[in-house]
């Protein structure tokens, strides 16, 4: 699971609503995976990022050099884009958990795939 993906996940436990975001990340196995740098793509992802959630996750993983906010003219700032590329796309959480901040429910991540399935009691309807 990449941090860009983590940035999009929220808890769907019954009654939690928007308080189910962001999920608290805990990782037991992380891999740094070189990915071809595509500045155009990274630049397009920047507006989609929820920064607080990203910083929290990056912090948990003890990542260094994580920009705290988008800089003006970021589309042309290669240094900035490269850092974002690394944080968003090259850090893979292979094993760990995601925790709903409201209910405490844990969602496991195994083999890089988060399991967000809820039991019947937990789900909304």
């Amino acid at each position, binding site marked *: 699971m990449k941090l860009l993906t983590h940035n999009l996940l929220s808890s769907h436990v019954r009654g939690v609503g928007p308080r189910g975001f962001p999920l608290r990340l805990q990782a037991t196995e992380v891999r740094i995976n070189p990915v071809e740098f595509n500045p155009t793509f990274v630049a397009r992802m920047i507006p989609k990022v929820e920064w607080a959630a990203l910083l929290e996750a990056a912090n948990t993983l003890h990542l260094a050099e994580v920009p705290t*906010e988008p800089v003006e003219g970021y589309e042309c700032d290669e240094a900035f884009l490269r850092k974002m590329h690394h944080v968003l796309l090259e850090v893979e959480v292979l094993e760990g958990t995601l925790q709903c901040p409201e209910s405490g429910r844990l969602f496991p991540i195994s083999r890089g795939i988060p399991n967000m399935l809820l039991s019947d009691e937990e789900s909304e309807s």
Partner: protein
Amino acid sequence: MSAAPGEPGLGPPVGARFFCTAGRGLEPFLMREVQARLAATQVEYISGKVFFSTSSDLNMLKKLKSAERLFLLIKKQLPFTVSSVSKGKIFSEIQRLINDDPGNWLNVISIWKNLLELNTENEKLPQRDTNPLKRKVGENETLVAKKSKTEQTRKIEENMECQVGKQREEETLEQREPVATREELPEAASENDVEKAVETHPQGQLTFRVSCRCSGTIGKAVTAQEVGRVIGIALMRQFGWKADLRDPNLEVFIHLNDIYSVVGIPVLRVPLASRAYIKTAGLRSTIAWAMASLAEIKAGAFVLDPMCGLGTILLEAAKEWPDVFYVGADVSDSQLLGACDNLKAAGLEDRIELLQLSVLELPLPSESVDIIISDIPFGKKFKLAKDIERILQEMESRLFSISQDCMFAGPRGRCLHRCLHSTARQSSAERGPVNSQKADSPRVLHAGGTIVLLLSENHYLCLNDREESSLPVNSKGSHTDEPGPEKCSNPEENIDIPETVSSSQGASNQEYFCKMSPFGSLVPEDCYKVSLGKTEAFMCKYRKAHSSGP
């Protein structure tokens, strides 16, 4: 090295005439594609084939994604009139396909060789040992006949235009098995194409095999087997070629029906629909690509397939539209493992993320997704109308909607405008002047997200017959109560696209589109009925117009 004609440095043939077979319902996609990709001219769709002219080279031709197979056209003419019982008369007419204009045959074959040679002009082709089959003429006839018979049997499957059909009966999401696994990637096969093409016998002899399809009136008068034999003999006599049923240089394809008589040669051994980059096929690749093309994927989009199965749709999309964030999700462990495998085999594991979740409970914030493309399982799992509605509701709320408020619409962090100003809910992104160009631009209406779904006939009818949406639908698709309103066609009728649709584009899809109803804030935009081999499906596109609620 190469015994084939053609000068070095000769450009690709100018305006060669081709045709492609296409799955039923995909013809409008193919017509658009040949025009867009190949700048094709004289594009016509007639009875399951799209004919076109182009001077594109083989690399470009191989990129066609909505076609089944690609052929060079040798002859297309009016159907044979079958007025008398005399087969002899019919056979002599068939022979004229070759004998009237043998020069044309040789010309097309030389175009074919040029196409394949230019594809590998930098490669040194190994000189393979040819093993010409020495047979007496009589034996040849029998062998040609035998093979034609197998062709005829195969023809029945081929008539469905699907070599890898998707299993649609009695299937739940979890139980869906991969339909086809290839040991060898077709890429290897295409090299063989070239070797076979240029490796000719001395005196420029080729080995060949005839593949024949007969239907309609002429199909009742003669068999494919007989036609194949007649063609085979005529070719041997005219050009001195030898028949090779197992591994010929050249395949000759002939299709006779009530609309036309068509003769062509397949450009490649392997159908275009067989993708080198897909290890285990789930949904038919041509349909997967067509769905992705309908979705209007743009660079920077977030595309989700919440029932991705083996990931076919995302693979096709990622290959065509690379600068996009793709996420595939499924309930099933085994499907996800298969998808993971597929991603690795295609080299796309870095570009497509996987999640395990239920489409009925999407763990995504509202308005966070730009595009949703999915093939909804046909089986028992989502049989009830309310299941389909629930799925659509889940998707609808996650989908990005139209907004007039800012440059990059959508409440969630995606509005950079907000990010760099104080209205954002995150305090961290407060300062900094906005890029002045953006700040001064007028407010822009940002189009809503799109959903493209592949629905069974059952699901399609459920969604478009909203008055009865609470009623359960039995497995045959008929309602338990009275028939629905007029706009919903009788589910027990066979909805059949007539074979003889002429070159009018999209005549049939209008019919299905008109029957679609809006769903909440989802506005129908397009609809195509497509064949999956054994069953049929509806490719439906919706766009989100406005947010339907909190």
